[in-house]
């Protein structure tokens, strides 16, 4: 090895938020593996416990601590690393590295920053410095200027001309910006923008709207050797964030001249920046000339590099890490071929499509128009040997119920509305465009509205034409040639079935009759030029199959698909650990997944990787080919679990809990019967089919009640109704949307929520720990602050929980994992939910208890017994260490979405606080989640009636902390009664001091807002909460969270006094 490095501090990227998903776990994990291979000691810092990089297998010392420089300095003092690697942890880690450098901490301790220098990072990130560097090397950048008034704006328009983009500086939720086509529009938009901007400033930019957005993933080493790993073309033109664009690799519409021109530019740029490692260059290309502009550069590995890595098979993060420790490209072997070097450019002999996964199913009120701010939580990637098949594979990987481009519900949408939607670039534009083709629109017309290249539109139209050809024909009229063509173009059995009014199974049978089966091709970086060793496959309907089927025992693990709210990185952790356990047991592991951001889709994680959609058909095809001894569905969240009954019907062996036990736990009636038999209680409830029935049932149960549709339908989620009026409104709305399916009403028990993750082997249960939620029941468990070990329960309750968990696991015939949620209400425990699968909390509990849950569960599924596995049975003895999981939200990224906590999950990620006492753990957790509570200042309070009494003692605490109160009339009266002075503020539209203005003027430091009825997006409360989030003001919607925070403030913990904890030493 080239540099003398012994101990490296690797900085991770923290919680999953929009714009920063699992890709940095993938890159960080690859980097750590490289360092360890070199015999370098790895000290890891990441606040996110659901990651693989924070595993003992990956690092030598692990700090799950808040990501800030105070903490880093403490770790430096304690661990004395000689180097820091920050380029793998996204923008968060890179910013920390720059800050460490600027504050002189790196210099003070004589530490090397591996990879690209801070000066170079700065040059790439600082808008002005970057611009002047580009001018120096003669690379065009988009002309722009910041102005403070309309006159300057008009003057500048004389120089750059129209159209022109106006972006308010420090913009809130993207408001106030726009594109001006003439002086009048400029005047209008700029004056609005100047008003919206907190600093009265707008950025004027030459519009390149409609230009092609092209990305190059580059790699450069210490000697200056440069390669292009991959180039990618965004189907959506410039103007839609690349994270929200459908992206294709390689570019499809560029001739070699254009390809090489942009490649040359990328090389020139990263040479000038002196990048050492991976780098992403984004360029805008005029579709009518050789004109181009550099958009931006990411001087690090990124989401795009994760995609490029999976799209080509080239291990970008690994190579970047090797370069960071001194290697050069011609010294690094290409793992894929095993014989060539990393210094070459991958070539693809297939087409890759990435489609973002958006959270609008969770945020139904949200504004779905895509723009320059990313809103997707995750993405799927699909590989095909034609564009159509890659696109259709991608669509069905999204798990949005779409197997075709045909969407029945669009038939009733007016053409005018369709045009509006595609002009806005809505997240569902693909389906709207398809519908427009069905209505006879021409490629040319749609291209001119959307700016999408005609090539892609023609390909979409190809699919539409095929769909229309077979729609409403009888399946028996689809002969072998046609069927083969459809399959080649990526049509699924279900999709064909839907169009021909038959079932997917009928198509499956017909396909079998015709002997049409997929074959699998290898992703090998070299287009078949060299023999490859990468066991990485995708399906096509071709002639020659490339998979060698071994005679070994094998087990298939179904992954969890794209990152979304409710199903995050934790399930990738589980899938990967499942694979590791299989390897330990000498079993060949096969993984199927479609998420390019993950560790599970690294081709060296499992023995074989199939990059395929996670649908019934696509997984069954692989099973039929590989004939594994069993399939594990417990680790991939809902994505894999929902395959259970189908695979069971098809005679596939499901390892662990059976399809039957999954069904019992999910079917309300069956589950209730089981609980009755076991004598375990659950909150009383009823399914109702009319408003009257619902009101009657609720009267009997007693308010408040929890209501939810029995069948997930677009537009309705779970809510708490506090009174008849709220319930009536909900029911009315629900039955209007869907009159056939019942609405479920449960007694809402406002008690302490407890959660258990356990392993059951048929005889014994092992419960690593009981967790307690800080927020009372009613807040989704994923959004609650969760405390391990449970603090507030007595020994007797603990025993009851163990007993009930054992009974449930036994009765459900669980083999492997089970997650159970309880509520403790008036001294009794009730079961709220049972999931016979891995849960969100498994990684964190495994880490803090040092019980490798997935490894044990996998071995149990293979027939081993817990008592022989060395971790005991029953309830694990609690550790002294306290761990607090705090959820992290991305609400500011999603305009017009409700932020108040409730029964539906909203958080995108989580952090862990680890301490020797609960207060420290909670303090660290809150700090890690960036919940910065001001110690004093101005607090804006509005509390709904249900919570007013409870709020009083907290109000007194706040007063003692010198908070100045601003309150709406009801709350102000309450405060006055308690002798707490407050300034009365008026509601929106009323005369007087308006609360929105207060927030807008930056006068408020803390907002406490208890949502009232209905959660109407037009309500004042909604607007207050949105404003607060957009202004980055701490906004609390649960009294329990408030209480915890107030208690922590009262303790006056100082960051200087806290100790950083290596979780390997707990």
């Amino acid at each position, binding site marked *: 090895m080239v540099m003398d490095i012994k101990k490296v501090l690797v900085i991770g990227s923290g919680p999953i938020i929009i714009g920063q998903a699992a890709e940095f776990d993938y890159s960080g994990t690859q980097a750590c593996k490289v360092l360890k291979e070199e015999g370098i000691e790895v000290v890891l810092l990441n606040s996110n416990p659901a990651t693989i990089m924070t595993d003992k297998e990956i690092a030598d010392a692990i700090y799950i601590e808040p990501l800030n420089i105070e903490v880093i300095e403490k770790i430096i003092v304690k661990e004395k690393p000689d180097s820091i690697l920050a380029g793998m942890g996204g923008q968060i880690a890179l910013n920390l590295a720059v800050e460490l450098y600027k504050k002189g901490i790196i210099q003070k301790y004589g530490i090397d920053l591996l990879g690209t220098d801070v000066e170079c990072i700065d040059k790439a990130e600082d808008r002005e410095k970057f611009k002047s560097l580009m001018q120096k090397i003669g690379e065009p950048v988009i002309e722009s200027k910041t102005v403070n008034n309309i006159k300057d704006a008009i003057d500048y328009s004389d120089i750059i001309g129209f159209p022109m983009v106006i972006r308010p500086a420090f913009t809130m939720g993207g408001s106030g910006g726009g594109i001006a086509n003439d002086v009048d529009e400029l005047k209008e938009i700029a004056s609005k923008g100047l008003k919206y901007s907190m600093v009265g400033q707008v950025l004027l930019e030459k519009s390149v709207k409609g230009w092609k957005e092209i990305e190059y993933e580059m790699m450069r080493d210490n000697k200056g050797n440069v390669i292009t790993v991959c180039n990618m073309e965004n189907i959506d033109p410039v103007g839609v964030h690349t994270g929200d664009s459908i992206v294709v690799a390689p570019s499809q519409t560029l*001739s*070699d001249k254009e390809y090489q021109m942009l490649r040359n530019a990328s090389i020139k740029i990263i040479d000038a920046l002196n990048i050492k490692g991976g780098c992403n260059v984004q360029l805008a290309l005029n579709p009518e000339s050789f004109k181009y502009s550099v958009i931006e550069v990411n001087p690090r590995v990124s989401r795009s590099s994760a995609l490029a890595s999976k799209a080509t098979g080239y291990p970008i993060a690994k190579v970047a890490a090797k370069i960071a420790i001194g290697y050069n490209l*011609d010294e690094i072997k290409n793992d894929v071929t095993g014989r060539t070097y990393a210094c070459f450019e991958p070539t693809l002999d*297939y087409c890759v499509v990435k489609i973002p996964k958006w959270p609008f199913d969770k945020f139904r009120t949200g504004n779905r128009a895509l723009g320059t701010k990313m809103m997707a939580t995750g993405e799927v990637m699909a590989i095909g040997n034609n564009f159509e098949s890659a696109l259709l594979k991608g669509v069905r990987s999204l798990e949005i119920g779409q197997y075709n481009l045909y969407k029945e519900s669009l038939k009733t949408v007016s053409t005018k509305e369709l045009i509006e939607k595609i002009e806005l670039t809505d997240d569902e534009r693909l389906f709207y465009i398809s519908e427009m083709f069905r209505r006879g629109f021409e490629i040319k017309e749609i291209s001119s509205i959307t700016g999408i290249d005609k090539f892609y539109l023609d390909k979409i139209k190809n699919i539409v034409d095929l769909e229309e050809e077979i729609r409403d024909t009888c399946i028996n009229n689809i002969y072998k040639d046609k069927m083969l063509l459809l399959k080649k173009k990526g049509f699924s059995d279900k999709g064909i079935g839907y169009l021909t009014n038959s079932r997917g199974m009928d198509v499956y049978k017909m396909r079998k009759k015709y002997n049409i089966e997929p074959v699998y*091709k290898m992703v090998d970086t070299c*287009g078949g*030029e060299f023999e490859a060793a990468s066991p990485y496959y995708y399906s096509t309907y*071709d*002639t*020659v199959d490339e998979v060698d089927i071994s005679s070994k025992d094998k087990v298939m693990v179904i992954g969890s698909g794209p990152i979304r709210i409710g199903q995050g990185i934790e399930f990738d952790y589980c899938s990967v650990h499942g694979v590791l356990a299989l390897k330990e047991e000498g079993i060949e592991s096969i993984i199927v997944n479609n998420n390019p951001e993950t560790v599970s889709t690294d081709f060296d994680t499992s023995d074989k990787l199939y990059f395929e959609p996670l649908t019934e058909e696509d997984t069954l095809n692989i099973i039929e080919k590989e004939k594994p001894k069993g399939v594990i569905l417990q680790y991939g969240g809902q994505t894999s679990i929902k395959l259970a009954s189908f695979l069971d019907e098809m005679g596939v062996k499901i390892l662990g809990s059976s399809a039957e036990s999954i069904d019992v736990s999910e079917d309300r009636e069956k589950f209730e019967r089981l609980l009755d038999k076991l004598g375990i209680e659950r909150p009383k409830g009823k399914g109702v089919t009319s408003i009257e029935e619902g009101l009657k049932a609720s009267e009997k149960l007693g308010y408040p009640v929890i209501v939810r549709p029995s069948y997930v339908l677009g537009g309705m989620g779970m809510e708490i109704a506090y009174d008849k009026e709220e319930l009536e409104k909900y029911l009315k709305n629900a039955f209007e949307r869907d009159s056939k399916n019942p609405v479920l009403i449960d007694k809402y028990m406002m008690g302490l929520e407890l959660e258990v993750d356990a392993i059951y082997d048929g005889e014994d249960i092992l419960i690593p720990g009981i967790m307690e939620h800080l927020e009372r029941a009613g807040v989704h468990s994923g959004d609650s602050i969760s405390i391990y070990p449970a603090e507030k329960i007595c020994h007797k309750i603990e025993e009851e929980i163990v007993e009930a968990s054992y009974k449930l696991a036994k009765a459900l015939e669980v083999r492997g994992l089970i997650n159970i949620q309880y509520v403790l209400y008036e001294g009794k425990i009730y079961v709220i939910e049972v999931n016979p699968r891995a849960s969100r909390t498994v990684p964190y509990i495994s880490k803090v208890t040092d019980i490798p849950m997935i490894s044990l569960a996998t071995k149990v599924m293979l027939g081993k017994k817990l008592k022989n596995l060395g971790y005991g049975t029953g309830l694990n003895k609690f550790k002294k260490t306290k761990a607090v999981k705090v959820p992290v939200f991305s609400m500011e990224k999603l305009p017009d979405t409700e932020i108040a906590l409730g029964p539906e999950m909203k958080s995108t990620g989580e952090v862990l606080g680890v301490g020797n006492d609960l207060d420290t753990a909670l303090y660290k957790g809150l700090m890690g989640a960036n919940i910065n509570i001001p110690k004093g200042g101005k607090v804006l309070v509005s509390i709904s009636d249900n919570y007013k009494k409870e709020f009083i003692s907290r109000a007194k605490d706040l007063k003692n902390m010198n908070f100045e109160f601003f309150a709406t009339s009801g709350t102000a009266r309450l405060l006055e009664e308690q002798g707490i002075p407050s300034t009365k503020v008026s509601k929106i539209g009323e005369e007087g001091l308006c609360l929105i203005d207060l927030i807008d003027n930056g006068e408020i430091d803390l907002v406490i807002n208890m949502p009232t009825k209905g959660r109407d997006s037009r309500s004042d409360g909604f607007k207050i909460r949105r404003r607060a989030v957009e202004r980055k003001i701490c906004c609390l919607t649960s009294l329990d969270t408030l209480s915890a925070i107030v208690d922590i403030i009262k303790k006056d913990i100082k960051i200087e006094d806290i100790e950083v904890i290596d979780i390997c030493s707990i």
Partner: protein
Amino acid sequence: MKGQLFFEDGTIFEGEIFGYQNDTLGEVVFNTGMTGYQEILTDPSYYGQIVVMTYPLIGNYGINDDDMQSFSPKVKGFIVREAYEKFSNWRGKESLNDYLLKNKIVGLMGIDTRALTKYLRDKGTMAGKIIVGEMNEDSIFKEIRKFYNHNAVDNVTTNYIYSLKPKLPKVAVLDFGIKKNILDSLIKMNIEVTVYPANTLAEKILKDNPDGIFLSNGPGDPSELNEIIENIKNLIGKKPMFGICLGHQLISLALGGRTTRLKYGHRGTNQPVKDLNHDRVYITSQNHGYVVEEDSLDKEKIEISHINLNDGSIEGIRHKELPLFSVQFHPEASPGPQDTAYLFEDFLKML
């Protein structure tokens, strides 16, 4: 229309004919470039060959007027997985299909090109025949077995001497099937270029007194070109000399080296080449089926300047005493990366 690709061992790949409908016989080679099909079609080095593209979507940006490497397509046949008809690019003038049809080049599409590539990789470059329609005769196999890409250079070299952009210095170019972009690259250096037919005698060239001599790329087996090699011997040392691809092989042969056939050649735009003098690796465009054997070179006089990082084969040589160097790869790119364009500057400095 159905079409089939036959190999002498009886292997058949089935697809559909596009472009011109006719049978065609040639050496079947694969190219791994993802862009640049137009340059490949018109590169004279592909004379006598049926080219398989490993990238599946070909024709996306159509055919334009600017990217031709010679006046017409030189391949004997073109095999793709999908030939896209409705091209989309501002420079595109006609579709791939129309272009091939117009130039009477046979295309075969709908082939499992990856399987075909792996077949060629395993068996090595071979002759093959595209047959229109369905036919299976022993005579085909006999014909295929007999095929050899003889005297390819004769078919692609210029018939007359011509000069481009009179300026100084002057370079004599021996045309063995030169790509347009090589001429463009020389002209960009402000060099006056005079192009000579491949078999022009040394005396004639030297009489014209150029400042340097350039030996171009071209098709076929270099060891067959005995007269040309002898002729080059008479040029070496007389003037600064630079050769590319076939030119490089011919210089090596004239210096007493040997060439041998690569199993399946280097054809693509992603070949890593190490410049041994500068300890740098460049990504290069390549297109050759023959290579200079390392042990055949007189190391006293000749140094190896470049090697291929994938298989270690010779990619460039430099004479230790004389102003002479040559490279196996294509610094002029088109298609492919332009990372080694500096070699044209090196040549200019010699003049």
